[in-house]
């Protein structure tokens, strides 16, 4: 069974590599042999620029610097959103009144894209780091909250009764029953939220940034440097993929009880 599992994993990795290779080949093919090549740089050019940017600065920093700023912004906004979102979501899920009051507001705010908030956020927080955190926060908060809410709402009431019969205090019921019961759902929300938080990095760096992965795209766009735009896009894509993978691994560890196949 273990062996089978390893085999399956290796097989999936092979497919993933093949899929990505096919994507790059198709990109190379289209830019080499069609008219698209006149406007759009091919993968070789972009990858070369990408590698160079680790050593030669774009604007004030090399790619390391840009990655540092973007990841920092996203993590700060995201962590605050996750912590607050879990608390608010569980409160909504366990209290009828919180639900009735807060839920409609969330459903209303959720479809508004982070980018739409930029003017207001600048008005409230100026143009430093704070408004960038705020945009990331906006991009991830509702997803965490609504999932935590669903998770807490679905806690089996028998389990709560059961914990009470075993002499568990209300505080322990929250920590040892409600929270772990909602964990798979909370994780699902945190996973989606991390993706949307990272997606919001471009919007965040529209606010007076001089660095960051989103800023690279903006800079490329301003100077009609299309290879630079594509470098920004590739970096955002790869980092997003890595973040999602890390989250999945954390979920595997923390919610192993929820999987039927172990």
């Amino acid at each position: 069974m273990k062996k089978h599992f390893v085999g399956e994993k290796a097989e999936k990795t092979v497919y993933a590599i093949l899929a990505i290779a096919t994507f790059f080949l198709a990109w190379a093919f289209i830019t080499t042999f069609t008219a698209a090549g006149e406007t759009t740089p091919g993968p070789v050019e972009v990858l070369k620029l990408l590698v160079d940017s680790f050593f030669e600065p774009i604007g004030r920093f090399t790619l390391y610097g840009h990655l540092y700023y973007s990841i920092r912004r996203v993590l700060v906004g995201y962590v605050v959103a996750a912590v607050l979102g879990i608390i608010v979501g569980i409160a909504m899920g366990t209290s009828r009144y919180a639900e009735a009051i807060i839920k409609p507001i969330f459903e209303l705010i959720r479809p508004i894209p982070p980018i739409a908030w930029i003017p207001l956020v600048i008005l409230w927080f100026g143009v430093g780091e704070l408004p960038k955190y705020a945009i990331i926060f906006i991009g991830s908060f509702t997803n965490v909250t609504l999932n935590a809410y669903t998770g807490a709402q679905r806690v089996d009431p028998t389990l709560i009764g059961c914990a009470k019969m075993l002499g568990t205090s209300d505080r322990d019921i929250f920590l040892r029953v409600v929270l772990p019961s909602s964990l798979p759902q909370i994780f699902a929300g945190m996973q989606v939220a991390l993706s949307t938080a990272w997606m919001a990095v471009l919007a965040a760096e529209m606010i007076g940034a001089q660095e960051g992965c989103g800023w690279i795209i903006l800079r490329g766009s301003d100077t009609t440097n299309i290879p630079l735009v594509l470098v920004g896009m590739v970096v955002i894509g790869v980092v997003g993929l890595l973040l999602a993978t890390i989250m999945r691994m954390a979920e595997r560890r923390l919610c192993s009880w929820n999987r039927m196949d172990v």
Partner: protein
Amino acid sequence: MEQNGRIDHSIISLEHVSKRFESAGRVKEVVNDVSLEVKENEFVVLFGPGQCGKTTMINLIAGLEPASGGTVTVDGKKVEGPGADRGVVYQTTALFPFCTVMGNVEFGPKSRGIDKKTRRERAQYFINLVGLEGFEKSYPNQLSGGMRQRVGIARAYCNDPKVMLMDEPFGHLDAQTRYMMEEELEKIWQKEKRTVVFVTNNIEEAIYLADRIILLTNCPTSIKEEYIVDLPRPRSYVDPEFLKLRKTILDNTEETL
């Protein structure tokens, strides 16, 4: 409690207990004036047709539902809410899915702040007693139905309750596993004597396990009859006395509505 001049050693006592559910303006009478005394270490089976109010009676003793009338007393204290002096084994497994077998069994002692070494030893004892040695680190979704109910029994025992309330714990098991679990439970109970109130709608199970069978009527349920079972243990399902009692009780049992 003193009644008619005789000292009563009952540990559970229901006095004129009734229960009504009111929902959307409709009143549903479920338990109708039940009075019952259970002695210390007695194995009492509540035997009644489906949907008659058996789970409701368990919930009343557990304190998970308040009585609409009358009083429930356990070990001299009026029941006013859930409490660790009553252990419950549920109709559905109701294990904590995010805790291992060990985590489930030690849940009660941990809640009550018992130090790790003591509670682990205690939990291990009951895990072994129910025959789950080696499965301490398994999660409930990795266990069979019978094994889950074993965990449920160990979890209730490990918290050292004054009384055990078991609501059709074997109701969802296949016939084979069910017989096995009945034998196991009897052995466990012989080894670790507790007062048990056990609910079932299976007559063989009732006679196999009970010191006393309380026959319940349809909803709203009340006590129809009581039978003392003083056959020697472990009992045989094909013993003529067993079969005679089975017929007597079934003849007196109401059809499920």
